[in-house]
């Protein structure tokens, strides 16, 4: 990527933000204009995300497409570089940009079903999208935090207004827990700025500046708690099942699929890349928490009857793998962790899309109430089984390649924990096979005879996600090639 490609990264932040502002001007009654505008912009985002991913050259600089504008300098506490609007991606950022692009398109398509205040919904949803893109491509701590918070802010209204079941409770719990998490991030950012003392929030400067080991050891766990809350890391995960169960379909997709990865990405960027010595010191704790989360989430998922709650706990379990992979602090485990972010993002987005498509008709998602759905909704069932197979790690699909890396990495550093992780995978299989056996096969329940197949837009969205999952499962080398250099650059990383 050249510096000029930085404009693509800026476009990725500004397109959703611009559409969000533009929608204020479109009258609510003009549904077709809203659909056209969001449809075109979501495809544009996908195209630019693909461009970013494939233009990132793995043998070049670590940060590519770097462009910076000074926003504020030489005033008050700010020095020469001060606050800049600075963009640029490393390999990890590039792969997460692609993840976002692929999720945004189906999330936009399924939202067109909403009848009540669709315009307002899109205004908020695209603010979240802009926030997520920003968090992946910004190289300045001030703006990084700005975009991070921007991705959280609209969540309360999105869930509270358009959600289902216990929406107010879920929305408030999610909002308060995530903002409590950002207290820790706030603290770390302030301390980092003061500690380095260069008068700048520029991430690259902060990355290269020498930092005290003691400072890193104190700040790293704070950051992990803060970002881990957003990443649904055990034991700071409890907003996730409630929040996902209450959220409308596309919010669940975007939130579980992408936003939770911003948390994990924060641990990588602000944690390991900025404070490698602190990271090395605390990595074993991440292993314990990650493996614990994997096991805890899987066991909890065994007991759930609400499909969305089950997926919420399943997400906790899968995100546990991510933190486990990061904790191994070797390059294989790390590749697995970054792959798992992408793999889980697409897989869980597909799950939420399908559950949403069914719930909109049945207004029920209790697994024991369903049986024989494969007869009633065959296409829906095919996609659901496809997603389940990816989730339990069938070779050839995205989940396998990611989990394989994580398991190998874990066995290398912590053999016993590796055993636990494999046990988790077995439990995952159990709860997924259980839901398939119960709801999809067997006698068809006549109560659901009125259910129709999912809509064409939902099918199209499911196809987009399925293609992406197949691509990552069958040919993961583009991802691994791009991730590897960024991982190797972290001081203290073992092979």
């Amino acid at each position, binding site marked *: 990527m050249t510096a000029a490609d930085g404009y693509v990264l800026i476009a990725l932040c500004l397109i959703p933000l611009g559409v969000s502002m533009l929608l204020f001007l479109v009258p609510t009654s003009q549904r077709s204009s809203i659909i056209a505008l969001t449809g075109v912009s979501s495809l544009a985002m996908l195209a630019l995300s693909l461009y970013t991913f494939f233009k990132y050259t793995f043998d070049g600089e670590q940060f590519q497409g770097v462009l910076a504008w000074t*926003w*504020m300098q030489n*005033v*008050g*506490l700010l020095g020469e570089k001060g606050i800049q609007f600075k963009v640029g991606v490393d390999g990890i950022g590039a792969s997460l940009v692609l993840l976002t692009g692929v999720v945004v398109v189906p999330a936009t398509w399924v939202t067109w079903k909403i009848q009540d205040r669709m315009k307002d919904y899109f205004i908020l949803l695209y603010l979240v999208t802009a*926030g997520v893109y920003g968090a992946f491509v910004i190289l300045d701590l*001030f703006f990084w*935090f*700005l*975009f991070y*918070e*921007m991705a959280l*802010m609209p969540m*309360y*209204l999105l869930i*509270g*207004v358009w959600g289902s079941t216990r929406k*107010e409770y879920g929305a*408030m719990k999610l*909002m*308060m827990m995530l*903002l*409590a998490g*950002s*207290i820790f991030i*706030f*603290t770390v950012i*302030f*301390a980092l*700025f*003061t*500690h380095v*003392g260069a008068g700048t929030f520029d991430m690259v400067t902060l990355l290269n500046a020498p930092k*005290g*080991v*003691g*400072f890193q*050891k*104190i*700040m790293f766990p704070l950051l992990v708690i803060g970002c881990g809350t957003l990443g649904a890391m055990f034991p700071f995960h409890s907003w996730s099942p409630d929040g996902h169960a209450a959220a409308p379909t596309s919010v669940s997709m975007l939130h579980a699929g992408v936003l939770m990865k911003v948390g994990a990405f924060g641990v990588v960027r602000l944690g390991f890349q900025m404070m490698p010595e602190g990271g090395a010191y605390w990595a074993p704790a991440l292993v314990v928490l990650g493996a614990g989360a994997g096991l805890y989430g899987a066991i909890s998922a065994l007991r759930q009857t609400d499909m969305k709650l089950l997926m919420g706990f399943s997400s906790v379990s899968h995100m546990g793998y991510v933190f486990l992979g990061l904790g191994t602090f070797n390059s294989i485990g790390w590749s697995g962790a970054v792959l798992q972010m992408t793999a889980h993002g697409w897989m869980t987005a597909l799950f939420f899309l399908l559950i949403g498509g069914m719930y909109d008709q049945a207004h029920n998602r209790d697994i024991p109430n369903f049986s024989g759905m494969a007869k009633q909704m065959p296409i829906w069932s095919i996609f659901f089984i496809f997603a389940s197979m990816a989730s339990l790690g069938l070779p050839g699909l995205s989940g396998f390649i990611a989990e394989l890396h994580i398991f190998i990495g874990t066995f290398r550093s912590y053999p016993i924990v590796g055993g636990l992780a494999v046990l988790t995978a077995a439990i995952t299989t159990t709860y997924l096979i259980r839901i398939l056996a119960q709801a999809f096969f067997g006698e068809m329940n006549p109560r659901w005879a009125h259910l129709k197949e999912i809509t064409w837009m939902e099918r199209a969205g499911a196809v987009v996600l399925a293609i992406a999952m197949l691509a990552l499962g069958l040919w993961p080398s583009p991802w691994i090639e791009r991730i590897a250099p960024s991982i190797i650059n972290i001081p203290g990383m073992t092979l």
Partner: protein
Amino acid sequence: MQDVFGNALNFNMALLLPEIILAAVAVLVIVLDMFAKELKVRPVALPIVSVLGLVAAGVASGLAVDQHTDFGLLVTIDNFTAFFRITFIAVAIVLIVGSHEYIEKHVNHVAEFYALLLLSTVGAIFMASARDLLVAYLGIEVLSFSLYIAVSLAKNDTRSGEAGLKYVLLGGVASAMLLYGLSLLYGVAGSTQYGEIANALGKSTDDVRMPLLLGLTLIVAGLGFKVSAVPFHMWAPDAYEGAPMPVTAYLSATSKGATLALFLRWFGGPLLPAIADWQWMMAIIATLTMVVGNLVALQQTNVKRLLAYSSIAQGGFMLMAITAISDIATSALLVHLGGYIITNLALFVAIIHFYNRTGKEEITDFRGLSRTNPYLATVITAGLFSLAGMPLLAGFFTKFILFQAVVQGGFLWLVVVAVVGSTVSLFYYLQMIRQMYIFEPEGDATRWGISGTGYLTTGVLLGLIVFVGIQGAPLYTVADRAAFDLFPQGVAAPVTASTGAAPAAAPAAHK
């Protein structure tokens, strides 16, 4: 010009033009009202004359800034003064334009009310520009007395009289404490002039430590009352609730801003040599203010009381910067104050228009506002989110800078308290947003609009909230220039500079 002793005086009355204009217009408004029948003055003329006077004063204060004219060491017109002058004048303009319908309907003695607003602005400006304890004290009293009356002017509302009485009694006690503290300070320093106090305190010995400490305590208590810092905040919720809404807004903006200006002038100037004696007091008060303000706000059901506690908590954030005082902290405080005033005014003007239409002010009365008046709901939501520090809005940027500056001053733990408090605050702000967006309106669900001047003021304020949020550099530059005049050497004050470099790392660095 010469004084009574024959010394040459360095006076330039043109620099005081804004205050002169304001005072004259205040008198003019009362005279116009007195002869309303004879002169055939229509009621609408009063706000127009007031606003024209304010605009003229604003223009005049933009024209002339000269810190070398010292007015016999009584006041100084530097960038710091100019910052507050323009802020206070702008607040008065916004409030009069935004709420003149409310004032005509719900306030007794309309002309006197406008005059009081103008006079209190004069008092507030002198609090910012004073260089002598007595001038500053006069400024405080001009501001306070105007507000004592204004608080009790609400029509047909018994709470208003009660609020006025409470405010005047407690305010009197606070003034007495402040005055006693100033006397003790005079006893120690031998002067009422800021520069000489700083010299005297710099050379003071331990003999005078006790009276100095007592004096400082009384000063902090007196000023703490004016800025409604915990534990001197008891009057604020009642006064906020009982007062006519524009006065409530005025209390939360100008009155608070002027007191903070005084804090900065005193604690950044004459009292700076005694920092070891007052810094811990300010740290305790700031902590208490943030904690109590945010926690008590959680239980409020009345929107004015909610905003009262919210502004108490915001005051706590600003007192942090006084604790960590330096040029950096001062400019950050001014930035935050600017953003806070813009946001609070937007909220209050929007709520005033809501009250004009509905006559209600409970939080639950806002139910379904996003259906009946989406524009007003957007303004209120933007205001609340900005107070909570959400991005793209003024509050995010100003809080970020303020907190970073306090950390820079070596008070990371204070900032942690502040950030926790700020998160708690989001909970009660969300309560109101919940009413507006998640619930459907009760009863009458027809759409309604607000007046043209309402759209104008809320629109401008909303635009400013967003503008400061995405392009805060102009505000920060102006604030920095103002702070520079307070700390002319441009060096940080002798705070805890040694530990300030790496507060969190310091204990761990030896491992």
